């Protein structure tokens, strides 16, 4: 395998973007990435997208996106792994370049969620329809069950959950691309509307529109496009049982753990080497479970990290400096690429007020369903 670098990124603002269609969003992000690298050609495009067929009635996104980017002719495919679609697209692009198949590849992610579809129902199709959907469960409901199990096993409290939201909003307030660029107080979180006990509205990531794109090439060609490339040191993906009921411990995300083990092995690093991480906080409890499964904190102790300041900017291991899915927004297919962009900017020293000083190695983790799929990438300043 050839060493692979990310050389440029582009990203729309995240939010309810009524003026923009799915294709507008993709073209905005992709054009920005190409312009930043002064690149005018591509060998391949991978578009991460969960459910354009349901959200806007549009399938076959590969040629649609290539065409509207003015690149009809280029190999282009849509990649789907529910909310981990962006991470999976990055992994496909990484393999495409590492294998020698292509030299310049765009890994993008896009989701248009506010064009009238019933978002909760669309997202629920990432759960097992026969075992879970049939009975009336929702995604907040599935993560609420994970939260309840974590509380029962480890003594996690509602205040611990709320502390994750407060931290991520504090980070998001520093991110001009964020859907909710404002802070929230603990009391505001803890008295917000109950959605699925014990998860409240402010424990849930929002419904968002947005697109992101990164440009990948072999490391030894990277200086053609940028003087500050970021190397992809490791990529890991894993799956778990589709239905939450089939996990021995509902509070332990085994696919996240396994994807991390694989990424660490490929990168030749350990959890203690990670200096900044973006993890999949679709709900506050998810961040708690993910940092445990990634080995950033000890199993069972994830709930202590946000209240102690350990995972805040300035803490031992800053997590979700972008604001996370909670504050930055969660256009599901775009999220995995957005996470990689945050780490890319952190490692290049471009993160502004969110900068983790001297960060050289960072991690991003993107998850689908109730944790049935997970993708981890480990990046390093080249």
């Amino acid at each position, binding site marked *: 395998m050839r060493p692979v670098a990310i050389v440029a990124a582009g990203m729309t603002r995240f939010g309810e973007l009524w003026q923009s269609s799915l294709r507008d969003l993709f073209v905005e992000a992709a054009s920005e990435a190409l312009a930043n690298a002064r690149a005018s050609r591509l060998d391949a495009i991978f578009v991460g997208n969960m459910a354009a067929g349901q959200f806007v009635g549009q399938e076959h996104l590969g040629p649609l996106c290539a065409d509207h980017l003015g690149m009809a002719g280029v190999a282009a495919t849509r990649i789907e792994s529910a909310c981990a679609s962006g991470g999976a697209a990055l992994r496909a692009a990484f393999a495409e370049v590492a294998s020698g198949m292509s030299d310049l590849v765009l890994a993008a992610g896009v989701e248009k969620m506010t064009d009238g579809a019933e978002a909760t129902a669309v997202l629920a199709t990432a759960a097992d329809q026969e075992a879970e959907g049939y009975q*009336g469960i929702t995604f907040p409901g599935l993560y609420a069950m994970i939260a309840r199990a974590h509380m029962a096993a480890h003594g996690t409290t509602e205040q611990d959950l709320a502390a994750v939201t407060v931290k991520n909003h504090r980070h998001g307030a520093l991110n001009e691309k964020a859907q909710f660029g404002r802070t929230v107080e603990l009391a505001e979180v803890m008295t917000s509307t109950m959605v*699925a006990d014990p998860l409240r509205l402010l424990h849930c990531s929002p419904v968002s529109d947005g697109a992101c794109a990164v440009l990948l090439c072999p490391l030894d060609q990277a200086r053609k496009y940028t003087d500050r490339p970021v190397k992809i040191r490791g990529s890991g993906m894993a799956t778990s049982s589709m239905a939450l009921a089939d996990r021995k411990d509902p509070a332990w995300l085994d696919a996240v753990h396994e994807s991390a083990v694989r990424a660490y092995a490929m990168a030749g690093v350990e959890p203690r080497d990670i200096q900044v991480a973006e993890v999949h906080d679709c709900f506050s409890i998810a961040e708690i479970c993910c940092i445990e499964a990634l080995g950033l904190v000890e199993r069972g102790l994830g709930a202590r990290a946000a209240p102690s300041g350990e995972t805040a900017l300035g803490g031992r291991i800053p997590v979700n400096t972008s604001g996370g899915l909670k504050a930055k927004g969660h256009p599901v297919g775009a999220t995995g690429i957005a996470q990689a962009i945050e780490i890319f900017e952190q490692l290049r020293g471009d993160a502004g007020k969110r900068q983790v000083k001297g960060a050289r190695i960072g991690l991003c983790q993107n998850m689908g369903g109730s944790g049935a799929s997970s993708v981890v990438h480990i990046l390093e300043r080249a």
Partner: protein
Amino acid sequence: MPSPRYWREIPNRYRLEAGRCRRCGKVVFPQRRVCPSCRGEDFEKTALSRRGTVVTCTVVRTPPAEFEMEGPFAMAVVETPEKARLMVQVVDCDLEAVRPGLPVTLEFRRVRAEGHGGILCYGHKAVPAG
């Protein structure tokens, strides 16, 4: 839901039919071709006991459109004595009473009704035992 899809699922929805793997003994619900524990393919048909214990639970307060009239409702992952686990609604009780460890029985109930003139869909719901 198209009627063939509904009809295919009747054995597990109505009778809680599961498969016991003849190689490793795991009880798989609903039945599958391949055992998720040992990849065995030889199963003996069995039915789950109509009782179990709540493993984890929640109260869904923003239900999907088809369940709008029923919200808020409790849902739980229930483990039967055969160690099979299933996702079910918990009914006929205070929402607050549903907690991990709660013993329940599984009762045959209507689960959902599909639109105008659509199929009435049945299955099992949990009720606190005793």
